[in-house]
């Protein structure tokens, strides 16, 4: 009853003409910047922050929040169309989304991405309303050892990402780990693999790596082929997904939402881990995992749901505890404070109009995003009919612009080009790029947390099984490992018997 009253209050606030307008402005901006690689919500929000001084607090937070979750919608667009991840969280969408586009199913992929994002966004918002406070205090129980165990599980599961040679996939994971080590080590402060270049002291950026390995290398590969890519222009089938597409995508969307919601609450895990996890779970559960990486619709629905759910639930620790999980959240927190609003356990009691107004605006914003993105599908798909010789300079231009805008540094652009060439070599060698990205994302966090856990426990390893969360995650990792190794051993044995 109480909750219902609050939600009514929230919608009352969010439905005012002014707030609707700012919500729309936010999600529109979010979609646009989501499309551009490198230019993410972080830069946009920091640029818009000074403007929000003149706005009423509720309107400004509604707009900034709209930019944040709106970017998750836009990020998938270029990932699907031209293999260019517009946001860090949409790198995973490249894997199957782009393959769908190559098969002439770009419309279906874009629509499913928008719809699963919508479902996930709404469920994530419901979670903020219903379970915000208990979930936030639950997230506080995650210590360094638990983060380590979680990352280890992710890395063990990475082998799922491969189709084909397991050794190559493992090699790519290790290479990703090594690339992730470039930069200043958190625990010792020592710079590693920077060759004395101050520009490398903060490591190689995710955008540099993902854009290089997906978008730039795809351009190089395409230029190698003499004939233009007719597959794209020939058979762009129905724009909307078929009924069977929606049925196939339904459960993956829900599972992706659950996974994304989980990671969104944990401060500091970052947006790409949730979409990777959702993708790996779907591939593991699939009856025919070989479809993944070749245009499986679940491979678009699950990660897109996950990154949107995570974007939504990331508001939970920020609103209820004042803990910003990401740099962008820190900015929104700053915006709240500058507008005289104090986030924390009592925010719902102290400023109910703000809290419930913003939450209600998230439902409205998500609905606006679907209304905005579904009609855009037709326009986006038309882009693919542009001859490739005109399209690819534009893709490269966007890659360069996006990478330059990260740090206003030309080095990032050169690095991205180098990674693009490397990606081309990998595709020639049939080395899958996804395990590399996953190793890059998980490796540094794993190292940071295992060393912190041991620093806090004074080198006592028992910390990893004394914590129930860590113990359970480690057992799951072990089981997963055994389940992968056993069939391989059995197959070897049978082979040995057959030969003997």
């Amino acid at each position, binding site marked *: 009853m109480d909750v219902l009253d609050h939600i009514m209050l929230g919608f009352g606030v969010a439905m005012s003409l002014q707030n609707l307008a700012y919500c729309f402005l936010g999600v529109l901006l979010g979609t646009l910047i989501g499309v551009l690689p490198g230019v993410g919500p972080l*830069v946009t929000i*920091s640029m818009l922050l000074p403007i929000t001084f003149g706005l009423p607090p509720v309107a400004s937070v509604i707009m900034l929040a709209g930019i944040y979750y709106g970017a998750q919608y836009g990020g998938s667009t270029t990932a699907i169309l031209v293999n260019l991840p517009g946001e860090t969280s949409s790198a995973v969408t490249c894997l199957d989304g782009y393959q769908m586009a190559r098969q002439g199913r770009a419309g279906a992929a874009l629509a499913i991405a928008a719809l699963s994002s919508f479902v996930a966004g709404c469920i994530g918002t419901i979670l903020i309303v219903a379970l915000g406070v208990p979930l936030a205090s639950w997230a506080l129980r995650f210590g360094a050892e638990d983060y380590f165990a979680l990352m280890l599980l992710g890395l063990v599961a990475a082998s799922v990402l491969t189709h084909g040679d397991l050794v190559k996939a493992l090699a790519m994971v290790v290479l990703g780990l090594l690339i992730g080590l470039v930069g200043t080590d958190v625990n010792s402060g*020592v710079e590693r693999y920077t060759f004395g270049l101050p520009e490398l002291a903060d490591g190689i950026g995710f955008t540099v790596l993902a854009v290089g390995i997906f978008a730039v290398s795809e351009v190089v590969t395409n230029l190698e082929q003499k004939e233009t890519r007719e597959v794209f222009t020939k058979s762009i089938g129905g724009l909307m997904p078929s009924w069977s597409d929606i049925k196939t995508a339904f459960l993956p969307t829900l599972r992706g939402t659950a996974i994304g919601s989980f990671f969104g609450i944990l401060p500091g895990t970052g947006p790409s881990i949730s979409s990777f996890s959702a993708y790996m779970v779907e591939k593991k559960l699939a009856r025919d995992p070989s479809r993944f990486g070749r245009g499986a619709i679940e491979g678009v629905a699950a990660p897109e749901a996950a990154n949107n759910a995570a974007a939504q639930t990331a508001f939970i620790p920020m609103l209820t505890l004042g803990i910003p999980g990401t740099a962008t959240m820190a900015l929104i927190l700053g915006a709240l404070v500058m507008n005289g609003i*104090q986030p*924390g356990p009592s925010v719902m009691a102290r400023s109910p109009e703000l809290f419930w107004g913003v939450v209600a605006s998230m439902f409205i914003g998500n609905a606006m995003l679907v209304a905005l993105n579904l009609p855009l599908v037709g326009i986006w798909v038309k882009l693919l009919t542009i001859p490739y010789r005109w399209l690819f300079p534009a893709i490269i231009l966007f890659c360069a612009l996006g990478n330059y805008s990260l740090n206003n540094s030309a080095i990032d652009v050169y690095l991205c080009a180098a990674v693009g060439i490397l990606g081309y070599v990998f595709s020639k060698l049939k080395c899958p790029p996804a395990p590399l990205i996953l190793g890059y994302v998980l490796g540094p966090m794993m190292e940071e947390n295992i060393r912190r856990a041991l620093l806090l426990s004074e080198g006592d390893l028992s910390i990893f099984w004394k914590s129930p969360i860590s113990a359970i995650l480690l057992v799951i990792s072990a089981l997963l490992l055994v389940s992968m190794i056993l069939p391989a051993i059995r197959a070897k044995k049978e082979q040995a018997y057959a030969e003997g």
Partner: protein
Amino acid sequence: MKPTRILAAAVLAALLAGPSLAQDYPTKPIRLVVPFPPGGGTDVVSRVIAQKLGETTGWTIVVDNKPGSGGSVGLSLAGKAPADGYTLVMAQNANLVINPILGKANYDPVKDFAPIGLAASAPQVLVVAKDSPIKTVEDLLAAAKAKGGKLTFASPGIGTSSHLAGELLQQIAQVKFRHVPYKGASQALPDLMGGRIDVYVSSVPSVSVQIKEGVLRPVALFATKRDAEFPDVPTFEEKGIKNSDAATWWGLAAPAGTPAEVIARLNTELNRVLKLPDTQARLRSAGAEATGSSAEAFAALVKSDVPKWTAVIKAADIKVAD
């Protein structure tokens, strides 16, 4: 050309350029290098000042974010820029003074820069979780002694000014903490609130929300005087821990060799905008206090900070470069 002619030409050029430089400056947009990404404390301080300078003088000031390596990238770039007054940098003690000591920068804080004036400062604070038994500085020191060097002290990273403030405290108060470095506040705060670490040192702005909300409790400030926002929080100085000032300061600097007239002009304008109530209010909302100073005072601060932090870093045995 004969040497005398060169000399004559140089004198003539100096006569022509000298007065015109001071009078006409600036004749083109001024670039203000901000060595951090948009949105952070340094960015806010820089943009507020750049905007106010622009509004009141009619100058065009372009803020150029050049982040990387804890500010070293931007400072190094600005230090090498032409010393004509058209490239300025918003330096901070962490990047101007501390990074070179840590071997993380290739510039000399005294020789490579011409100080213009101090802009703002923000104190640092030691905080604990709300249910921590540590309530006062005395409690803190007693707990550190009782735990025999096992009291865990978290910072936003190795070599950050917060880390060094914690080291300074240990050295002056003759206690030993166990340092646990984090990458910013996003994971350090949950660990502090979850009781996995004992104390956290941070700049005030990044924990003021949590302090006001009551989830974190401030113990004492690393500052020479109390903070207007938290008048009840004592300083370590008051509690008998002398010379424990570790405030973060921001100062406007130019490449070394920038004409003295230009520096003087910039100093006048900087101090003028820092006195405007609107500037002060906007800096305060970002957690910083407008300070302002003469170029000489800024230079003196840099000169005294270098040996101070060199000693702290040496005593704490912090080595980040091989």
